């Protein structure tokens, strides 16, 4: 049967592609379980003397693990903030026409095209001037630059899929706007909110340039901790690899929970 | 073109079906003659789409064989079966023009260009799209797109059968009538075997020479529209076909009489004493208001133009009458008379024949 041959071909293609994706990650995990002596001394495909020392270093040293906590704090702040402002705006764009709506929508999207490098220095000066430098909220606000347009865009797509009759029925039934929005409308687009939250989380979690520029000690993200430690302490490869592995985990967990919604979110053609 | 035979065909979507309900299509055998127009009629989930997918080769039946002529096609792929299919919603190649859409099945089979052109022109005339041949399919209305699908189904002359899967679902009502008439005309003209799946009895009865009524995975009756109407083999056929459907009343049968809720009425022929749940069935147009007969309570009258429907009940069961426009209805009546010749007797939902005709 031709279909059987085709599906075997697909399996080969997917296996090769997944290997390509996973082998570099495996190498990082492999290194994180080795001692530095083993990493630099011998070349082995798997750890000869598996050790958790590298992870222990990170989980017991505040300068390391605070990095994770800082990152998580500003990522969560950013996600909540982005959704909170994007929800009403997306509702306005999906339900009404108003003066300058199209221009405004387009202008919002152009912010997604702004290179963070362009904004790094002005952000630094702006947040220093208003006394927000090295705070979590500074990074959370800075990441709104690209996450708010994205959230508005995704949510607008999901909201446009909800028939307007539902709004009208609710108003006729005497619901006020805030009550309608939180009790009826938000549950209807729950998967959309999930998808938007996922992408906000993702883009805030992976960004480094802005978060590094806007912090020094108190809100320093894990990503920045990694780069600085490399240059300072020389080549502690094992700890570096362990830190890298630990930065992959939150993302992997998040994907696992939203896996059934990812395809749906992508299906709207909106990222 | 070929005769289509289903030999002991059955299908289940479960790997190891046990109970009766596990079968999406219960064992059936049927022969459809070459060039006939057939309809598969039933409500959704009755197994008609399963049967269609088995014919088209999308599904491999769990049991039995499908034959086109003498050839066993059960294991053949869709392409090898040489059939055409029109789907529930328009399936057109958006980026192609109407002409390219119609030519596509021919081009893929390597037909010479001049023959393709002639065929496409002929089909375009049939479906009335000669003017729009060079338009892109993308921008057309649903009606027009469905006509293209129809045309793609008709463009090959040598197909074994053309399958229609509720093709008029997305079409406007007046357009529906036009397309159905067109289909009928095309069938007369070219004599393809056509198989039409629908849940709409009007579509089925007006289109087909023979209607196959399905319910819960079973073929309950196959016959001409007239025989389905006059002698439904199953109570399901009785109330599914006809508007309103057949009246059904629980009864006791003794020879040539039926006793319903204490009233005895005559039958046209004697029946053997039946076992099981016994019902009599009668079409609403075979009943008239009377001063004697079954006690009837009128609930309301609906005037639908050339006749009126009287809705009411007999012995607590819903019971309808159809009275022609020109026939007066008595101001007050509380009984109805049934035409004995048109009463059917059903045991456990299946029709039984009277003794004399059976003998």
């Amino acid at each position, binding site marked *: 049967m031709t279909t059987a041959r085709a599906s075997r071909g697909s399996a080969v293609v997917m296996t090769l592609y997944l290997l390509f994706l996973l082998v570099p990650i495996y190498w990082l995990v492999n290194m994180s379980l080795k001692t530095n002596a083993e990493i630099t001394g011998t070349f082995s495909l798997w750890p000869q003397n598996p050790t958790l020392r590298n992870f222990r270093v990170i989980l017991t040293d505040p300068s390391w693990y605070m990095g994770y906590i800082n990152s998580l704090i500003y990522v969560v702040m950013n996600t909540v903030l982005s959704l909170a402002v994007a929800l009403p705006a997306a509702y306005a764009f999906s339900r009404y026409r108003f003066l300058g709506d199209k221009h405004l929508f387009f202008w919002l999207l152009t912010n997604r095209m702004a290179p963070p490098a362009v904004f790094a220095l002005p952000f630094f000066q702006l947040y220093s001037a208003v006394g927000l430098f090295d705070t979590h909220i500074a990074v959370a606000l800075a990441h709104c630059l690209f996450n708010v347009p994205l959230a508005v865009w995704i949510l607008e797509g999901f909201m446009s899929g909800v028939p307007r009759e539902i709004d009208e029925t609710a108003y006729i039934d005497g619901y006020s706007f805030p009550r309608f929005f939180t009790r009826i409308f938000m549950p209807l687009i729950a998967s959309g909110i999930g998808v938007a939250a996922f992408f906000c989380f993702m883009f805030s979690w992976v960004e480094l340039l802005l978060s590094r520029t806007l912090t020094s000690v108190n809100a320093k993200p894990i990503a920045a901790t990694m780069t600085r430690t490399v240059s300072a302490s020389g080549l502690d490869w094992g700890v570096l690899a362990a830190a890298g592995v630990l930065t992959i985990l939150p993302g992997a967990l998040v994907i696992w929970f939203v*896996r059934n919604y990812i395809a749906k979110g992508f299906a709207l053609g909106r990222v | 073109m070929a005769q289509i035979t289903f030999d002991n065909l059955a299908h289940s979507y479960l790997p190891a079906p046990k109970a009766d309900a596990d079968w999406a299509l219960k064992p059936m055998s049927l022969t459809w003659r070459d060039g006939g127009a057939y309809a598969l009629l039933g409500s959704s989930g009755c197994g008609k789409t399963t049967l269609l997918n088995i014919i088209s080769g999308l599904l491999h039946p769990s049991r039995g064989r499908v034959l086109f002529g003498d050839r066993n096609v059960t294991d053949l792929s869709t392409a090898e079966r040489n059939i055409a299919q029109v789907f529930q919603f328009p399936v057109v190649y958006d980026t192609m023009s109407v002409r390219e859409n119609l030519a596509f099945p021919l081009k893929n089979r390597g037909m010479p260009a001049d023959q393709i052109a002639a065929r496409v022109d002929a089909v375009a005339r049939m479906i009335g799209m000669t003017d729009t041949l060079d338009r892109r399919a993308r921008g057309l209305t649903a009606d027009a797109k469905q006509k293209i699908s129809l045309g793609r189904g008709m463009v090959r002359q040598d197909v074994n059968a053309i399958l229609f899967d509720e093709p008029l679902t997305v079409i406007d009502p007046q357009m529906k009538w036009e397309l159905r008439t067109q289909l009928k005309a095309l069938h007369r003209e070219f004599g393809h075997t056509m198989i039409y799946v629908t849940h709409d009895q009007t579509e089925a009865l007006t289109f087909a020479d023979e209607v196959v009524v399905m319910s819960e995975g079973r073929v309950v009756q196959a016959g001409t529209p007239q025989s389905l109407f006059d002698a439904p083999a199953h109570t399901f056929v009785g109330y599914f076909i006809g508007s309103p459907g057949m009246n059904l009343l629980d009864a006791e049968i003794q020879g040539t009489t039926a006793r319903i809720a204490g009233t005895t009425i005559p039958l046209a022929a004697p029946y053997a004493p039946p076992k099981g749940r016994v019902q009599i069935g009668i079409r609403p147009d075979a009943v008239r208001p009377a001063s004697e007969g079954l006690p009837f309570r009128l609930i309301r009258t609906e005037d639908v133009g050339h006749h009126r429907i009287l809705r009411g009940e007999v012995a607590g069961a819903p019971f309808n009458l159809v009275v022609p426009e020109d026939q007066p209805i008595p101001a007050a009546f509380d009984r109805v008379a049934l035409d004995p010749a048109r009463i059917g007797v059903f045991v456990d939902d299946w029709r039984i024949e009277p003794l004399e005709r059976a003998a």
Partner: protein
Amino acid sequence: MDKPVNNRAWFLVLPVLVLVAFSAVIPLMTVVNYSVQDTFGNNQFFWNGLGWFQEVLESDRIHAALGRQLLFSAIILAIEIPLGIFIALNMPKRGFWASLVLVLMALPLLIPWNVVGTIWQVFGRVDIGLLGHTLAALGIDYNYVNDPVDAWATIIVMDVWHWTSLVALLCYAGLQSIPDAYYQAARIDQASRWGVFRYIELPKMSGVLLIAVLLRFMDSFMIYTEPFVVTGGGPGNATTFLSIDLVKMAIGQFDLGPAAAFSLIYFLVILLISWVFYTVMTAQRDRT
């Protein structure tokens, strides 16, 4: 579907405006401000007109970075878009494997960008990296630290590793929206595999493909962290892309005026090329 006109909807948009004003407009005004002024480093600024713009537009260094950037984005698009489509066509359609493949494929997308850089920096090293070690064992002279071609190859492979899944997932979503009847119709019409792709799958993917091309263009054009971690822009300036050059100029050398003018031109170039992609691709879609 005509939406009612309601100018009070502005109140709903207001929070977004305030926030974006704070996180985009004010910084952008700062950039504009710097771009037309000069300073001697004592916080005293004076009007410099379009001098910085002229300097940037005539700078060989920036021309070279722009050239590298354009080449990089072109290569990235040329590899990731076809490869992403190809992968999407081969992904399992449903069931447990589909979920698993989806999750594994999304994994690189959620790794912080500098960790992506670190992974490949380590992976490519001849002494401790699997890739570098294997290539060396095969007798291939590979060294991304000294050899510009090797550095480019490493960064391109890294980007393909990092982002192809995004293209594939987008295309996959587009493919998932095609009803089975289309494939059945194609079988009946005896369309070839190529015909199915050309006349069914590709047209249905055109919407998501537009998004994929735009996103991959924008993000590859703004790339900073990953190559910075792997090569630091070297060897020499071989992998100094626009963002790397900009950060060097603004934060490293503190040349605020030129950096600001550079920023604005950079932003405009992205807007312009995105607009061109958008216009060309939507016109293509409407025509075919």
